[in-house]
């Protein structure tokens, strides 16, 4: 990416940026991310999100000149953006921020919305990582999930990406669909592996409030997989992916090497790092404050149009809430840094009375610097966090 802002001698602050693109061709039955099918206001939206960047800089002048380490376009379906639209937003970014040399710039793509030319153009704009929502390689499952693409289109999309020069590609897989057998999951994982992407995210399907899937479950039209069956699949995905040379660095995330972990997601899970976000429903963490935008495109447009930040609400987590955040973010990903924890919360987590039993149960690994989950531990992350949630202040 061409640097535009002169990076001066003093770089004040590192930051990550998130952009939420709230359009989808068709809503998937399980999805509770904010997006709408009506794309008629897409170009107005692009103008608005650019304006939101201006507003944000005005509200937080300290952001001006910040060093951007990662950028993530999520949604929704960011791959519905035309290269021109994406270019507009990127110019806005460059207007105010310094882009780090080793920046990561991810854009989520729906395989049903990409062409070789489009990906080539994205690449030219500086995007250097693509994430494809593939979910499954079975046509029946794709149909049932209301995905708009076939398995072949997914394979083709990855091929286009390679052709366009992307050397950092992720595919999302989803498992524990109702009635899913191990054999069916096995096939999808094998297909994903054969594509050789640098990164695979494998998610256990979660039935979220307010989704069509949730209604179907409530009406007993479909039955969720039992916890036992789901955990068999979870464990299977884990062993297969690890056995095929990926390493697990978060509950649902696997990378081919340490350098190929998704840096942007690691910012979320770092627990301390800051990220600034744009677009409806987007969440940010800045100056110790967590805030989120309104989840309605209309109100978002109105708000930005009248020159106000489209914020829905914010909160300032207190110390004990921060402790929980740092704890679960660290544990679910690359571990909790002991020194940092001690400095921030005055507590040596390694001496917590639950640590020893958790190690004995094969759930935790502790070394001088980091406390992290074992691969078995990842499967019990929530239970483990809860056991460590009550602080124990040990006087040294």
């Amino acid at each position, binding site marked *: 990416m061409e640097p535009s802002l002169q990076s001066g001698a003093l770089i004040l602050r590192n930051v990550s940026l998130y952009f939420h693109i709230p359009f989808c061709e068709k809503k998937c039955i399980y999805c509770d*991310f904010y997006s709408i099918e009506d794309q008629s206001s897409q170009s107005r939206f692009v103008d608005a999100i650019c304006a939101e960047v201006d507003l944000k800089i005005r509200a937080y002048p300290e952001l001006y000149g910040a060093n951007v380490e990662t950028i993530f376009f999520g949604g929704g379906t960011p791959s519905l953006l035309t290269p021109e639209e994406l270019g507009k937003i990127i110019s806005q970014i460059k207007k105010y921020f310094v882009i780090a040399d080793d920046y990561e710039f991810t854009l989520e793509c729906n395989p049903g919305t990409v062409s070789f030319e489009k990906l080539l153009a994205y690449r030219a704009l500086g995007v250097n990582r693509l994430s494809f929502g593939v979910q499954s390689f079975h046509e029946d499952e794709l149909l049932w999930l209301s995905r708009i693409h076939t398995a072949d289109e997914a394979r083709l999309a990855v091929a286009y990406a390679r052709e366009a020069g992307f050397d950092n590609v992720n595919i999302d897989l989803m498992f524990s669909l109702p009635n899913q057998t191990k054999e069916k999951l096995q096939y999808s994982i094998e297909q994903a592996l054969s594509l050789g992407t640098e990164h695979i995210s494998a998610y256990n399907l979660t039935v979220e409030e307010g989704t069509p899937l949730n209604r179907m479950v409530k009406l007993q039209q479909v039955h969720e997989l039992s*916890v036992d069956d789901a955990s068999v699949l979870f464990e299977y995905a884990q062993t297969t992916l690890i056995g095929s040379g990926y390493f697990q660095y978060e509950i649902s995330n696997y990378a081919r090497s340490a350098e190929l972990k998704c840096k942007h997601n690691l910012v979320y899970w770092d627990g301390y790092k800051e990220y600034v976000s744009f677009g409806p429903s987007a969440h940010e963490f800045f100056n110790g404050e967590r805030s*989120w935008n309104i989840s309605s495109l209309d109100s978002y447009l109105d708000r930005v149009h009248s020159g106000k930040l489209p914020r829905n609400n914010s909160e300032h987590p207190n110390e004990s809430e921060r402790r*929980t*955040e740092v704890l679960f973010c660290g544990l*679910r990903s690359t571990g909790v840094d002991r020194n940092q924890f001690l400095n921030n919360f005055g507590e040596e987590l390694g001496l917590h009375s639950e640590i020893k039993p958790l190690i004995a149960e094969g759930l935790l690994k502790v070394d001088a610097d980091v406390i992290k989950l074992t691969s078995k531990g990842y499967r019990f*992350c*929530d239970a483990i966090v*809860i056991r460590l*949630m009550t602080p124990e202040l040990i006087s040294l």
Partner: protein
Amino acid sequence: MSLEYTRNFCIIAHIDHGKSTLADKLLLETHTIAAREMNYNQVLDNMDIEQERGITIKLHAIMMKYQASDGNEYTYNMVDTPGHVDFTYEVSRSLAACEGAILVVDATQGVEAQTITNLYLAIDAGLDIIPVLNKVDLQSAMIDDVSNQVIELLGCKKEDILLASAKAGIGISELLEAIQTRIPAPKGDPNGTLRCLIFDSIFDSYRGSIVYMRVFDGTISVGDEILFMSNKTKYRVEEIGTLRLGRESRKTLTAGDVGYLIAGVKNVKDTRVGDTITSFRNPATEPISGFKESKPMVFAGLYPQNAEAYTELRDSLDKLSLNDSSLQFEPETSIALGFGFRCGFLGLLHMEIIQERLEREFNQSLVTTVPNVEYRVITETGETIEVDNPSSMPAPGSFDYVEEPYVKAQIITPSEYVGAIMKLATERRAIYKTTTYIDATRADIQYEFPLSEIIFDFYDKLKSVSRGYASLDYEFLEYRQSDLVKLDILLNGDPVDAFSTIVHRDKAFEWGKKLCTKLRELIPRHMFEVAIQAAIGAKIIARESVRAMRKDVTAKCYGGDISRKRKLLEKQKEGKKRMKQIGRIEVPQEAFLAILQIGD
């Protein structure tokens, strides 16, 4: 105040037959209280829990002035009585303070067991009874049938029965007049040796114990030195008076009066219901008969949810027992539950009330163990050991035999349910005595029951087999030898003392199985398997297991929405607070009462 113009009485009724409504009407009619002062809830029930349950737990009294048709003004003291089997002794003391009783029977329901028990107590106490059929305004009133029941019971004449509707205000003035003409004036010698009967006491944090009493003989004045006869404690009268809506202080009370007394007594245990107050200088030789130490019948362990709350729980129990002399407690330790208290209650209802008050008024989170009765273990050497906690039952073989308390129970039911009730009673090891018919449709069945069989959900079962029509009353009979065994529950091989129960040998196997099954449902899945076993001594009689959970994690992390995930975790953690940690196993509070839920 002349004895001749005083009447002391109480109202006997089954729950919901209209005692409170009728009492309110008497207060209104005598202008003791103005209609506008009467709030929606009746005056006599002034504790939250009582109102919700529709039963009067604590005794109170109130004085009214009645202008009788003979032209004289009379002082009526209405003494309230609690209306539940747990409080028979308290009822008997209230009755002893009166010369007469109004028997209220719901004309749409007929006579119930409790009514009969309390009526017998009243007759035994020599009270004159005025029977009143209430709710005669209702279409469904069975005036003839219910009148016949009452005639059968009292041996009275049909003309003696008053017809009333407390709600519609029918028969109220007739009743007020009948109180004057049919209930005798109190006897007693105002110049005799002082004797007052305590029929209740409550605790006031400023004034100490406030005693409700009836003066039988003599005169009591402010400044007098008095003696509580049961424990020979001496106090000086600070204040006495009569009971209107509030307390009205007076200089003296004399024979025949009902009123209150404050003497700087810091502990209600010194002012026991049934005790006699006399003069310190000139004490009576004999107390008023009938004093009994109220003895707890049901025991349970109360433990704080969190160990740190132990002292707080102790303070709360201390405060509660100031108010409730029948609550007993002493510290105990459980291997499973840590430090707590073994508490003795008059009955299961009393226990529930205490639990509820601790939780509501004192904000305590409790873990309660299964209630049990007190057993007597007779050793080889003939020694008797009282066991009020199943876990302290000596090992089998180390004693001669065990005795358990039996009660005399009376069940009154429409005759069509007799069969079902007999079946239920047999399952509960009851010994059948007699059946008598109160009238063509209602039977009065007498049984002897092991008390332990009644404290477990028997009342609910009785109600359900009789569609709510049968009623129950019981009183302690005696201790009898029984073939009892201690049933233990083990979690992952370790016995959990808080789960131990004592059961009849014939039922042990079935109970063990049911208890294991119930616990399997209640204990959540852990990261490891939890084995649940039931054992008698060293012998395992049932086994179940809670399979290990294989995953506990939400895959998704909602993009940058960390708050949402944090809140979910906080909520989950909050839910865990209701669990008691036993070793590595988390056991929900309800599990300790699981035995109460194992249906037949």
